[in-house]
């Protein structure tokens, strides 16, 4: 059984922010008097992650995902609680710990803007103390995997976003980290590039057994990479378990797609469920998840159904509903 690599206990992070009244008068007033308030960005979360897991962190903007990652990386000191990553306390920032993890922030870069990416790679080789042979081998492998051989000697500022992200990943992985914190690594990339990066992360996890925490607003990232997800809302953990169980836990409805051999009225469908689409020869119904099988059987008995398909609600819709309901009840 895998050992826990990351252990988080009762972690909290509160920020003090000030509110300013709009306009010039508000600006002048704020020179003397400011209203401060405390924001609980992370509010008492706990979890453990074992070696080799790829865990998705899902949450709305401002939920506390990136703040959590930053505490796990040792960038921020928590207000309270404890964290252990690879046996280290992250905010002691021991170099032995820092050599074993990597943080990729999709919206920030570590590549030097004015120089070709290879210069940053060489710098990282020195910083992480990577032996020359290992460095060349890893670099060649990563460059070929991500197909950026022609890009690494061009000024970073002249590269496309996709090329830059690939080079960012290379810079983050040159030292073969055991733990990867990926904060929206595919943000702003086209669908082809997103798939390339996902395949690469999956391959890296398979080959090196790296533990990965991934935050992303793209559900495809989560669906393809993560078996387990942790859902965060307003700093609190609201779900921690298998991705597949989110559907059984939160999905209330299923979708029935019907094709009829003869024309069917809309009225005749309403007794079975909510009609989402209808054009006489086909229809889509939203039905209760628990009753879906029974309703499907009744439809087959009562109506001239030529084809019937039962589908789960899309993951995005389920998660949207979860957070939407949380917002309404707040």
């Amino acid at each position, binding site marked *: 059984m895998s050992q826990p690599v990351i252990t988080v206990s009762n972690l909290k992070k509160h920020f003090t922010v000030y509110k300013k009244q709009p306009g010039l008068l508000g600006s002048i007033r704020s020179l003397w008097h400011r209203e401060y308030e405390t924001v609980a960005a992370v509010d008492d979360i706990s979890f453990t992650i074992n070696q080799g897991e790829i865990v998705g962190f899902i949450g709305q903007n401002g939920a506390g995902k*990136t703040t959590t990652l*930053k505490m796990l990386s040792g*960038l*921020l000191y928590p207000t309270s609680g404890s964290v252990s990553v690879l046996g280290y306390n992250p905010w002691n920032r021991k*170099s*032995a710990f820092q050599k074993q993890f990597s943080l990729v922030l999709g919206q*920030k870069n570590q590549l030097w803007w004015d*120089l070709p990416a290879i210069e940053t790679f060489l710098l990282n080789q020195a*910083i992480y103390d990577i032996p020359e042979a290992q460095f060349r081998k890893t670099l060649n492998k990563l460059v070929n995997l991500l197909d950026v051989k022609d890009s690494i000697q061009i000024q970073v500022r002249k590269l496309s976003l996709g090329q830059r992200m690939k080079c960012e990943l290379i810079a983050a992985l040159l030292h073969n980290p055991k733990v990867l914190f990926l904060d929206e690594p595919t943000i702003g990339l086209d669908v082809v590039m997103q798939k390339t990066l996902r395949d690469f992360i999956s391959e890296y996890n398979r080959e090196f057994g790296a533990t990965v925490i991934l935050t992303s607003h793209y559900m495809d990232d989560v669906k393809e990479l993560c078996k387990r997800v942790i859902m965060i809302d307003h700093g609190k953990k609201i779900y921690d378990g298998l991705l597949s169980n989110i559907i059984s836990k939160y999905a209330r409805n299923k979708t029935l797609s019907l094709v009829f051999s003869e024309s069917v009225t809309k009225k005749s469908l309403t007794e079975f469920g909510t009609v989402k689409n209808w054009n006489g020869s086909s229809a889509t119904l939203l039905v209760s998840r628990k009753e879906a099988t029974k309703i499907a059987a009744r439809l087959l008995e009562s109506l001239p159904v030529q084809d019937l398909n039962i589908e789960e609600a899309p993951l995005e819709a389920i998660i949207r509903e979860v957070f939407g309901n949380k917002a309404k009840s707040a």
Partner: protein
Amino acid sequence: MRMMEYRGDFLFWALVSILWTGFNFFFFSLILRVSDTVAGWTADEMYLLLGTFTLLDAFTWTFFYQNMQRYTRHVFTGSLTMLLTKPISTIFLLTTSSNSFNNIFRFLIGCAAIVISLHRMEITPSISSVVLYFFALMAAALFIYAIWFMASTLSFWIEKLDNINEIIPGLRRVMQVPRGVFAGAASVLFTVLLPISLVASVPSEILLQKAETKWVVWLFVSSFLSLLLARKFFYFAIKRYSSVGN
């Protein structure tokens, strides 16, 4: 390396730095036309002092100015985040990430002014004096670095602190005059509490063989103490770092 990617910018700022240095020497030559001495320093001694200051200034401008600008910007924009994850001293990364070699010509001008002044005064410093001179210059550079770094560290509290990088260079006016210029409270401030006036004076006095031991010792001691303080201050300040929102 990064600056030399932009050749036009490099050459332009090299020209500007040469002109600035030239104007500085010209300014003091005007003063020396009116008065034979400045706080007891003859014209040749003043040019030697200016040469030492120019060396020091070229050095601090090359290795510190851009880094201190970037330091405050890193804190403000949240890009300090990426530096903090590296398994290497963050202070080292902040201090050495950028150089501006367009001051190399000022360095050469400073050396020339020192050599010419010594030649005109028919002074041949001993090897020990030259060695002590370089160590004193290093101590002076480290002192400037420490106070600049501490001032930039205030950005953890003050958030936007661009102007700090103009205040510190503004102290250059104090650095390029003999310490004897200051009297009373100003003397206490710039010689004892914040010994900025020693950074060019003491090394120059060493070459001129008129250095006082207590000021030499105080330059080295205050450099060491200020470096310690800068480091402690940084590690105290870093706990306040909150990055920025995504």
